[in-house]
């Protein structure tokens, strides 16, 4: 189905219980795997206002949900606001998928971008049948619904922030994510998030502990991170160990020369 407007897309999706399709790079293999193709798909149109492209706003950046991963990686504004992103994107899928795959699809599927977006306190702009609404990603992601249509995401002005990003895969490139870890320091506080095999999540308990005890007192960090990860759904103890060490390494990077 090719709806004429975002609102019509929402109503089609709800009425026919059909998924949206953006780049199709996540949907296609999922359907092939299950040998179950939806009868109808709701095609999203990148020409709809604010759905594609990156622009500066008063708060920071607004990124259209249909912006492709390639466009994101190459955009000069990203180099200015988040120079660390390029290194991560090179490790997201392969060139073909990055050419078609979109930011919205990636966030919806809990892909590699979600850790960074969560750590940055990103807000999502959703199209509803009655109008738009804006919500923190941390609230939308855990209970996102198939009918939610993501128009754009808003990032804070992160120029000058320290950001550390790391992806753990099974191989160098083109690997499913085992764990992606994002550590952000906005000059005052540290924000941490993960995504991967245990699912996306913000590590708020760990952040609180760091706030209370300071970034240099990490004695109990291991225990806190471990139990918080487990609560989020990270059940493989060995992977938790890796994530914990990735977080520690990220924090070291943030605090180097501070």
């Amino acid at each position, binding site marked *: 189905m090719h709806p004429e407007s975002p609102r019509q897309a929402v109503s089609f999706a709800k009425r026919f219980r059909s998924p949206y399709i953006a780049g199709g790079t996540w949907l296609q*293999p999922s359907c092939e*795997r299950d040998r179950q193709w939806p009868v109808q798909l709701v095609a999203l149109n990148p020409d709809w206002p604010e759905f594609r492209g990156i622009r500066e706003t008063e708060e920071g950046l607004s990124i259209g949900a249909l912006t492709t991963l390639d466009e994101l990686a190459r955009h000069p504004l990203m180099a200015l606001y988040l120079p660390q992103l390029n290194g991560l994107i090179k490790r997201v899928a392969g060139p073909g998928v990055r050419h078609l795959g979109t930011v919205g699809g990636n966030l919806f599927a809990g892909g590699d971008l979600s850790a960074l977006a969560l750590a940055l306190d990103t807000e999502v702009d959703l199209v509803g049948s009655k109008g738009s609404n804006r919500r923190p990603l941390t609230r939308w992601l855990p209970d996102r619904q198939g009918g939610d249509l993501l128009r754009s995401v808003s990032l804070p002005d992160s120029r000058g922030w320290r950001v550390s990003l790391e992806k*753990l895969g099974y*191989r160098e*490139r083109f690997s*499913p994510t085992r764990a992606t870890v994002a550590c952000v320091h906005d000059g005052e506080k540290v924000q941490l998030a993960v995504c991967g095999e245990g699912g996306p999540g913000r590590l708020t308990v760990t952040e609180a502990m760091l706030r209370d005890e300071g970034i240099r007192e990490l004695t109990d960090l291991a225990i806190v991170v471990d139990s918080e990860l487990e609560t989020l759904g990270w059940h493989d103890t*060995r992977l938790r*160990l890796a994530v914990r*060490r990735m977080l520690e390494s990220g924090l070291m990077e943030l605090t180097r020369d501070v």
Partner: protein
Amino acid sequence: MTSENLQGAVRKLMTLDGNSVRNATSKMDLAPRIEGGLAYATDQRHLPGLLHGAILRSTCAHALITRVDTSRALNMPGVHAVIKADDVPGLNRFGIVIRDQPVFCDDRVRYEGDAIAAVAADTPEQARAALDAIEVDYQPLPVVSDASLAEQQTAIHSSHEEHGGSNLLVRETLECGDIDDALSRCTVIAEHHYQTPRQMHVFMETEGGVAIPDGKGGVLFRVGCQSGHRDVEQLADILGVAREKVAVESMATGGAFGGKDELTVQPAAGLLALKTGRPVMIHLDRFESCRAGIKRHPVSVKMTTGCDAAGRLLAHKVEAVLDTGAYASLGPAVLENYLDHATAPLYRIEAYRVSGRLVYTNNGVCGAFRGFGGNQATFAVESQLDELARGLGIEPATLRRINLRSPGDAGSRNQTVRWTAPPADVLAAAVASPLWSRGDTDNGRWLTGTGMAMGAQGNGLGDGLPDSGGGRISLSPAGRICVEFGFTDYGQNIVESITRSVCNGVGCREADVEVVLGSSRGPDSGPTSASRSTVLVHGVLASILPRWMDAVRGHAARVSGQPEKGLEFGPGGIFSDGRQVLSYRELAESTNPGGMTANASQDFPVAPDSEHPVGRYLQLQIATVARVEVDRITGRVRVTDLHHVTAAGPVIYPPGYLGQIEGAAVMGQGMTLTEDMTAHEGRYQADNLDQYLIPTFHDAPLQRVDVLDNTPEDDPYPVRGVGELGIEAVAPAITAAIEAATGVRVRRLPVDPGDLLVAMAAQEQNL
């Protein structure tokens, strides 16, 4: 290592680098290969009247079939035929060693993917839709999933008399000396368990091809396969027709590595073609290929190895279990090769008892795969040597040097061996690898280490299997020197090495040679497997060329009126005193078609004077030095360098040699680090290449391939095949390097970064 030793080695040591490859690469065949322009079997969608076939596969790992109803499917749009077990006119069984696999299951399914029925329809989509309309009722049976316990469970082949009552398919033991006495005299003993994965071949072109009926009850198969002549025998029996009625053309095949040695789509395609009277193509998609295709045998082994205080190997005990899955395929031959390699063929050991069991389970089907069980054994053997060296407090290379066999020594099975170089020289060259001089470093996060392992490999099918092959040479009507073999070109570019050999032998140009491969109506060369083609090509050409050239020269003398003695073969034709007197075309025109033809065949060389033929006569060797980086934070391993010292006779075609060694090594790296088709209750846990992870270009290490050729002048079979050598020692070299970096020895493949991390963390705590 003594310096003379090294000198000796270095004298004949050369590195195959980019230049040697570039200079030797002909433009002939490369472009179509790179552009995907070769005509593959699965490209033949233009055939008039072509139908598309699809196979219904079991959704249960082990179950009785209580009902198969195809009536609804038969009435689906576009459907021309639906067939099942009772539609097989001949033998409803196949299998290279034991015919135990049904074309279509009649009473029972033994793996998730077993074939139950097949459909031919106008389009692939219609064929698949019809599959969905076939109703099958199953009565589930207990799943045999753990190979080590399989023998205690009810047999999955109980209806077969020959292995009724047990899931044990074959048990075999090789023995030498008094193992108990030898063990009692050991100063150091290493006893460990090792586990290797169920690896998938991941050829680019998944299994497929077309069966074309001839209207007279016969069928021509154009398929990706490895042994057209052998397939003819099996297919004729299945179709219930005389062998002359069946022909196989294995055109260019998009990779095989052993995975197309067994029949794949041919039985179903052939039956559907006969039933409909129209050509039928079946091409598995990647999901179906993952699910139904043959895999490498997972091996679980306990090895007990001991030496005396001077490091001399005294005793070696092996107890291995190989999981062949639901059907035998080439499993019995793989077991035999595994056991041979598990005797540690490069080393003198006073006594060994090497036993292995091949068991049936409901975990898919395993069969031939590059290395053929040998590399699984070498992983454990070489790891054991490192353990003993550590126990003695000596260098791993020193322990090997003490025990390596010398040229002139018999092999580990007491068979005569034709060596290509002294094993000590191969070791010496590996010890001199520049990778060692970079040292084991720790940059805070990435720990680096270097390790080494050796391996031996024999060419040919192995013990007791009939192994012979032939070829033919003729002058085509167009005036080209036509060379025919039954082999398949599945990417190894055997065409190029045959062309080279003919040009060298005859003195003609590449453009004068036409190589025709893979037709079952042509000469029977035996299977394209076991690194045997190059040996046979060279042997057959050595016997055929002089005879054929004499005959052609005699004919040329008669036609040209020139004295035969002064006539020479050259580019484009026959020369006398440097002047061309006849072109090959003129020669061809002067004789009847097929007039100047010569055939030859030979038995594959096996060790003479042995009571039973022992295959490992033409011995090859490799030492692989690996350098790795291990991430202290996550346990992830990167292989940065592989340096191979190979001794496999002279190099005929450098790009082919390099391609085989490097390609096989990356395959070995995959098996070491990421590849494993794990099964849970008989269900594979990965179904496509986004879950089953092979190395990418970014994972491939820098590689260097050295060639050490000290093959004696009087060796009658100097040219050897290197299709499998490169995979032999990669896994133990990588795990040795990981140990050098981290202090942790990994004995279960693929290396689990989580386990490695936990072991590294435990070590850090103990420091």
